[in-house]
């Protein structure tokens, strides 16, 4: 049946089949898993990962990677827990500041990668440490104050749908439209698919890269805001696992490290798979270091499967 679809669609369909199977099997086995409360819990957990993975997709499509997204998320929680006061205009201004900081860090990444010609690994690794340091300087220990109104809104429901899931959906839709329907998206695919050829076609490669990294930083800040609502404090290390998780989500979702193909459609399934597996392991009381082992195995398995399929 899968032969009816084009190859790129087949990859996306396969990954969604895996997602559905991963949902059905524990639903049959575990009464706790299939409760509204638990599913809503999964969506809350998946939201920040899903959001940041959308930004990561932009970068992996360009054959890069962004290791600084986790630090940006941590810094966002720290900024919010430090500056937000219990009045609407301060909350609003703090949100704007967080987004601007995220976008600014992304812009710097893009500048280092394109104009200074650093490898994405080195540029974003350096930025990861730098931003981490700033977050720790501002708030060495978790704490601070996040207004109830902000936390309750972010973690609340709208027509029985968790607000984080709605934010995730908005980010996903905006991301897909940008990549599939706009000239910037076209240039991201072209640059990732063949940088030299894209340059010869007259495309400003540096501008494309700077735009993509800026978008990734901005989206990481959005993910950080959602996370702030959930933990209701500033935690300088809360984002540590997100670079690995988001890259895993992108790769599992069918965007190869060689760039130029794949997209957010698959990434979201990848993020949901990771969130669901974490949730299952939590329900089974599996300790967190085993969860790291599981994630590592998923990433390596996915890369092996995809590279075998492409031969």
């Amino acid at each position, binding site marked *: 049946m899968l032969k009816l679809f084009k190859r790129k669609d087949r990859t996306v369909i396969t990954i969604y089949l895996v997602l559905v199977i991963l949902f059905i099997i524990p639903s049959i086995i575990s009464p706790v898993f299939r409760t509204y409360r638990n599913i809503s819990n999964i969506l809350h957990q998946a939201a920040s990962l899903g959001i940041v993975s959308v930004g990561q997709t932009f970068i992996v499509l360009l054959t890069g990677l962004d290791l600084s997204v986790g630090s940006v998320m941590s810094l966002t929680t720290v900024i919010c827990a430090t500056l937000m006061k219990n009045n609407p205009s301060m909350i609003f201004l703090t949100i704007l500041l967080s987004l601007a900081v995220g976008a600014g860090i992304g812009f710097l990444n893009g500048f280092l990668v394109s104009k200074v010609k650093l490898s994405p690994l080195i540029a974003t690794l350096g930025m990861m440490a730098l931003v981490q340091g700033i977050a720790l300087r501002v708030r060495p220990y978790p704490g601070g104050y996040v207004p109830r109104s902000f936390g309750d809104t972010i973690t609340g429901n709208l027509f029985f749908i968790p607000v984080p899931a709605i934010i995730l959906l908005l980010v996903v839709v905006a991301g897909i439209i940008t990549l599939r*329907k*706009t*000239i*910037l998206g*076209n240039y991201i*695919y*072209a640059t990732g*698919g*063949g940088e*030299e*050829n*894209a*340059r*010869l*076609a*007259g*495309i400003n490669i540096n501008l494309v890269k700077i735009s993509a990294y800026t978008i990734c930083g901005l989206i990481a800040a959005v993910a950080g805001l959602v996370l702030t609502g959930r933990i209701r404090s500033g935690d300088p290390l809360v984002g540590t696992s997100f670079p690995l998780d988001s890259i895993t989500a992108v790769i599992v979702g069918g965007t190869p490290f060689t760039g*130029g*193909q794949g997209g957010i459609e698959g990434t979201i399934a990848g993020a949901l798979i990771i969130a669901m597996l974490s949730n299952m392991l939590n329900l089974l009381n599996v300790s967190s270091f085993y969860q790291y082992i599981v994630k590592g195995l998923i990433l390596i398995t996915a890369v092996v499967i995809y590279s075998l399929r492409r031969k």
Partner: protein
Amino acid sequence: MNKHPLIEMKGIYKKFGAIEALKGVDFIINYNEIVGLIGDNGAGKSTLINILSGVYQPDKGKIYKEGKEVIISSHTDAIKLGIETIYQNTALVDQMSVMRNIFLGREMTLPFGFLNKRDMKQKALQILTESIAISGIKSPDQLVEYLSGGQKQAVAIARAVHFKSQILLLDEPTTALSVKESRKVLEYIKHLKENGVSSVFVTHNMEHVYGIADRLVILSRGEKIKDVRKEDTSLEELSEIMISH
């Protein structure tokens, strides 16, 4: 008729470190003309073409288009002057569709940077059906990676022609192609000449270009050693010159 040639390069000199790649070469492209630019590896033909396509700037010498001096300091400048380069491995992006490749860098857009896919698809279909050499491409949505070498060349050329290039610079276009495919590409270039597109065909293989060229220019060690209309020479004479230098 215009009294100036379409392109005139005068006294082009280019040095890379200690190596003189071009030692003051004059090179002309006329209207409706296919020029065969021949020379061994290292003769300077790629350097000359790269200067005309904006990749390198000459150390000395001037370039005129239709009698007016021009400075070509980038690839984009060259495209603006109607000079398009078709590379051996065709500057197309493999993972993208034929349509997206045709319009790459020159997309049709709606407001806010949205792609006008409907119009692009229609135009792409028209281009595919009108250019004779692109046979076997069923849909503009087909990915370029599934095309043959000749089809890729043809798409690259059709793209250039659609965007009103007057001059095609073809750098070893037939090297990577089968005999049958290169004949198709050659026919296509000839057909374009009748429609007012001049071509410079760069090769080290004289037999490939002799059939379609109107004029042949031979470079050797950075100097022009022969510039002759085809009717005033013969394949034997040219081969003789190539070997003796």
